[in-house]
């Protein structure tokens, strides 16, 4: 079995190793084109981190390619006049410098775009992609004049329109980089192989999961403890560093670089490679990159020759003079349209992104309802984390206010959650309950008032920092990471309790391996506990609705909270599912001493498990007390419960 599974990759490696020699023996002369293709594949792989993993549409990625190429060109060119150019540095050093410079610029460019997404982000990157070639063109002749004192006179920094020529080649004793394309092929094979290896490891790491979570739902990721700012910056930086490698090899291989090689079309072509192959899939991006380059460099020119020969023999002048390479953008466009129509997930895209089921409630047919939660199934690690001591309230909110465009959403609201208590938060629709949650979890800043969690103010903290402090939440309309698996969803919850860094994720030292194994073990235990044990590899969006609700709670528990905010957890559940969930909440409080703040419209649930209840109406607290008081509170009945509820309550109690 194993031998057969290994046969494919082994054959591929052998094919890659012998290919250039076969090519030479047969006289195909395609090694040059294939090597160039590998440079573009490397670029596309870097872009895939930004677009495919983190979901940030970058239309100006060629800028990083340019930066990598120019970093190499400027540091490693033996001729240009300025002092910097006089001492060409070694290729082997420059390639790392180029990657580093690209990564730094990736952060610099990423920073202003962090607050925007989608269309706006794409437009900013588009602008950046235009700026870089223009800047390169105009930095060939710099004169700086300050008050008659010439600070810089006619400095040629980039070679202007003419570019940098020549660029130094790598030197290895006995390897003919000057005359033979085969060493370039192997150099790129090594760089490509290492990059692929690193990317593969990154994808299956704490960081890779954070990227995907950001792509799926940034707000939910933030509220699950993933810092969107550093996560996105890291995507930009790592994506850029791969293009730094690609750019520097490109410059050295071509021996000359001009600004024209990094225009907008290049960004688009790279994006085509990613989309054609399948964003997010490494195999797909390699396939897309290779197909497009081979088509561009080999197929188009070969078929031009063929068609011309045909045209001459049949005597059609139009065919005899045609140049198909001028039609390349036409063919790329056509190919992209066809792929989008026939296979929108890309040639090798994972099928799980292509399922047509869009809504939770209809996805698959629900089977037997979940078993009630069991005390002995509570994961041991959660028990260890339980905090019982601490006398004062775990959460104390005083005078909390928030207005939206003149509408008072919260008006001087006070609310206290004692440690280990379940507090119900009820009120008419639009009373400000969810706004209250959003303010406590840091999604919305309050206009006034204080929020104290375990004795320290949390006002002004970012949502992910509040999660790290120990507050987790669920959402009224379920917000899972729909295309990630059940297990991955819970693992994102553990993100803020894990420590693996980029080098750790790539090199996987024993400490990281152990951490990752422990994280998975915990996630599985949690899934068993909430009754999703058998579904850890299912894609979240395909779960039945009730399971999605439970998964959201499991993900919140994975952040190791001491206070859990549940926003209508039983909405859309049938009575049996509701009962199971109510039992689960009770169990968490009893066994783990978890404090719970609960928004819920199902009065049976609220009245059964709440220690105290706060009632909001028009953003103002109109009542606070134990359930029995709230049920009979005239203002609550008037604004919220309704007389029907009162009658039903009376009817239910009468027979006793």
């Amino acid at each position, binding site marked *: 079995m194993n031998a057969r599974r290994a046969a494919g990759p082994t054959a591929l490696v052998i094919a890659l190793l012998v290919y250039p020699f076969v090519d030479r023996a047969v006289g195909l002369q395609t090694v040059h084109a294939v090597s160039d293709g590998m440079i573009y594949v490397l670029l596309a792989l870097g872009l895939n981190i930004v677009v495919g993993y983190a979901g940030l549409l970058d239309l100006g990625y060629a800028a990083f390619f340019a930066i990598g190429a120019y970093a190499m060109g400027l540091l490693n060119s033996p001729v240009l006049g300025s002092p910097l150019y006089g001492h060409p540095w070694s290729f082997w050093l420059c390639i790392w410098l180029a990657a580093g410079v690209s990564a730094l610029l990736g952060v610099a460019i990423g920073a202003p775009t962090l607050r925007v997404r989608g269309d706006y982000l794409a437009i900013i990157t588009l602008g950046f992609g235009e700026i870089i070639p223009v800047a390169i063109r105009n930095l060939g002749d710099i004169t700086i004049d300050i008050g008659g004192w010439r600070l810089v006179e006619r400095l040629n920094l980039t070679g202007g329109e003419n570019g940098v020529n020549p660029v130094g080649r790598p030197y290895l004793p006995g390897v003919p980089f000057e005359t033979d394309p085969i060493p370039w092929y192997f150099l790129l094979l090594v760089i490509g192989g290492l990059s692929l290896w690193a990317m593969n490891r990154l994808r299956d790491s704490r960081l890779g999961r954070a990227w995907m979570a950001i792509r799926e739902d940034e707000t939910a990721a933030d509220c699950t403890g993933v810092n969107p700012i550093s996560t996105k910056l890291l995507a930009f930086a790592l994506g850029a560093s791969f293009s730094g490698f690609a750019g520097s090899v490109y410059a050295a291989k071509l021996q000359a670089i001009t600004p024209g090689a990094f225009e907008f079309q290049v960004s688009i072509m790279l994006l085509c490679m990613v989309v054609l192959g399948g964003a997010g899939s490494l195999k797909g991006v390699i396939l897309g990159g290779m197909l497009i380059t081979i088509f561009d460099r080999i197929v188009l020119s070969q078929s031009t020759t063929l068609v011309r020969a045909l045209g001459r023999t049949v005597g059609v002048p139009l065919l005899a003079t045609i140049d198909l390479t001028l039609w390349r953008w036409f063919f790329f466009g056509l190919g992209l349209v066809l792929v989008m129509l026939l296979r929108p997930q890309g040639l090798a895209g994972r099928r799980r992104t292509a*399922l*047509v*089921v869009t*809504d939770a*409630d*209809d*996805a*698959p*047919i*629900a089977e037997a*309802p979940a078993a009630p939660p069991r005390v002995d199934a509570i994961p041991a690690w959660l028990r260890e984390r339980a905090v019982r001591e601490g006398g004062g309230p775990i959460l104390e909110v005083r005078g909390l206010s928030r207005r*939206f*465009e003149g*509408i008072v959403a919260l008006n001087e609201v006070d609310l206290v959650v004692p440690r280990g208590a379940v507090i119900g938060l*009820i*009120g*008419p*629709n*639009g*009373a400000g309950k*969810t706004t209250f949650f959003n303010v406590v979890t840091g999604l919305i800043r309050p206009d006034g008032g204080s929020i104290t969690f375990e004795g320290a103010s949390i006002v002004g903290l970012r949502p992910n920092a509040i999660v790290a402090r120990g507050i987790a939440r669920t959402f*009224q*309309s379920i917000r899972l990471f729909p295309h990630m698996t059940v297990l991955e969803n819970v693992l994102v919850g553990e993100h803020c309790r894990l420590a693996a860094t980029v080098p750790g994720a790539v090199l996987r030292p024993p400490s990281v391996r152990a951490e990752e194994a422990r994280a998975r073990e915990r996630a599985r235990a949690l899934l068993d506990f909430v009754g999703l044990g058998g579904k850890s590899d299912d894609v979240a969006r395909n779960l*039945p*609705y*009730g399971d999605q609700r439970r998964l959201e709670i499991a993900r919140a528990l994975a952040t190791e909270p001491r206070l859990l905010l549940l926003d*209508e957890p039983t*909405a*859309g*559940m*049938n*009575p*049996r*599912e*509701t*009962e199971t969930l109510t039992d689960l909440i009770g169990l968490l409080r009893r066994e783990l001493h978890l404090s719970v703040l609960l928004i819920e*419209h199902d*009065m049976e649930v609220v009245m059964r498990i709440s220690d105290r209840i706060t009632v909001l109406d028009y953003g103002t607290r109109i009542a606070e007390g134990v359930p029995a008081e709230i049920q009979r509170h005239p203002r609550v009945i008037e*604004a*919220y*419960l*309704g007389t*029907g*509820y009162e009658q039903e309550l009376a009817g239910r109690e009468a027979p006793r």
Partner: protein
Amino acid sequence: MTGMLELADVHTYYGNIRALRGLTLSVQRGEIVTLIGANGAGKTTTLRTILGTVRARRGTVTFDGHRLDGLATDRIVRLGIAQSPEGRRIFPRMSVLENLELGAFVRPDRDGIARDLERVFTLFPRLRERVAQKGGTLSGGEQQMLAIGRALMARPGLLLLDEPSMGLSPILVETIFRIVQDINRQGTTILLVEQNARMALRVAHRGYVIQTGRIVLHDSAAELLRSDLVRKTYLGEK
């Protein structure tokens, strides 16, 4: 007797997943019919199949003698079917008023539209208060009201309601079901999909119980409220 709406042996799939497995159901003119069932049983899929947003692979859907399966959704809406979708499918960046006006998109009669707007505001005073606010800034419950209001603006012959009580406070759940009855008395036939089986069966004339994509029980609402299956599974009684 053929009803206003007839579904006969309808099979609907999402990719390879079977959502409806031979569903048969009929709604007579003037009725409130409720479809109750667990999450994932196929309730929303049934509504989608009627409106043509997903296609039945087998079986027929007829409305007032017109075959609906195969028609485009906008044509189906023009025949007089409107839906208030589950959850928050309103236009979030448009105002409450614009959302409601869009509901009347297929109607030419200006006076009638103005009258119906007034009727919606009478049914939901909260929407009148927020008439200029963007739909996306409404609370969950208010969005639910807006979705129902928008559906009413089309003055449909048949109104499809998908979980109208979801996420609403107890007092609003009562109000919504009272409004459902009012709408029905004013001449609109209603197919009501609900998780809250107790309330749904109280207002409906007849009901269907759907399990894993098929109807397993149908009867008058009063009989269903007494049936063991409904009481145990959907009313949570022991």
